[in-house]
């Protein structure tokens, strides 16, 4: 059983054992780069100038915006994994969207909390229900929670994965709504100033720390996601072992 653990083709990633080996090799690097980026990003966040209008609260943007981007990116990754589950029955796709759900929920919650902390000094209120972006991000948070609940409710992992995949894809309509809510409706939340067709309108002074922090958070997400996927694979191995041992034990009794 000494097949090479080298990854020669992309399809080799489908093999969980090879995937685990890849994770073991990759994660230390990812973690190190993430830590470095956070160090640089945090330094930049606190040493660049404050905004003329918003003062120092603009520094909240350096956590809030990456968290929000991640919340949406995580759901998009889950949607891609969901397609992998439904179309190709790819085993790692199941693991991917199950492992990503708690991460997505956490980042969405972070976006909501930091948004409130930014909104209080800026808009004078912690929250407003009449805003399309706030509402749709809150809905995204509820969707993540629902998916986590669904994954826990169904025992059979592959059935849970397929059914969750359907739900993820149906819920994907929310993502464009979140993105374009500030354009389509009159919202309290400000309009997009970075990811726009005409290019960013934000001053480079603020764009640089923002991008560094965004990159740091993104790599953090990927590190955590890979590790969570590995944990999930281990969890499935444990339960498979247990079932097998129960079967053998009952055969042993019967014999």
């Amino acid at each position: 059983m000494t097949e090479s653990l080298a990854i020669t083709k992309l399809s080799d990633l489908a093999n969980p054992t090879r995937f685990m080996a890849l994770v073991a090799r990759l994660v230390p690097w990812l973690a190190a780069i993430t830590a470095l980026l956070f160090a640089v990003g945090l330094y930049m966040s606190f040493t660049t100038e404050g905004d003329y209008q918003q003062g120092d609260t603009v520094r909240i943007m350096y956590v809030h915006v990456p968290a929000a981007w991640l919340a949406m990116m995580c759901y998009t990754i889950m949607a891609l994994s969901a397609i992998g589950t439904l179309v190709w029955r790819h085993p790692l796709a199941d693991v991917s969207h199950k492992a990503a759900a708690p991460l997505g929920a956490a980042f969405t919650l972070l976006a909501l909390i930091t948004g409130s902390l930014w909104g209080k000094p800026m808009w004078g209120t912690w929250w407003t229900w009449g805003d399309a972006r706030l509402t749709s991000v809150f809905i995204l948070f509820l969707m993540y929670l629902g998916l986590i609940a669904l994954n826990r409710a169904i025992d059979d992992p592959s059935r849970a994965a397929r059914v969750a995949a359907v739900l993820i894809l149906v819920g994907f309509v929310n993502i464009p709504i979140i993105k374009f809510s500030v354009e389509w409706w009159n919202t309290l939340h400000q309009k997009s100033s970075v990811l726009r067709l005409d290019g960013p309108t934000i001053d480079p002074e603020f764009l640089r720390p923002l991008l560094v922090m965004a990159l740091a958070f993104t790599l953090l997400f990927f590190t955590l996601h890979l590790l969570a996927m590995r944990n999930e694979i281990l969890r499935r191995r444990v339960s498979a072992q247990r079932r097998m041992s129960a079967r053998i034990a009952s055969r042993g009794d019967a014999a």
Partner: protein
Amino acid sequence: MKYAFYVFTSYGVAGVMTLCLIAWVWLDGRARRQELAELEASGFRRRSSRPAPETPDDMGGETKA
């Protein structure tokens, strides 16, 4: 800093959340590995980790069903 409370709380929450996520992933991984180690210690082996073909032994706890 005028709005120090809000800025520091934001970064604080972000930091706490990040640490919680890292802790969750790490502790979960440790628990799984412990469970696997316990199962292996009680005699069950994964099919692919068997070193060489042995004489068939039904009650030896091999996972080959």
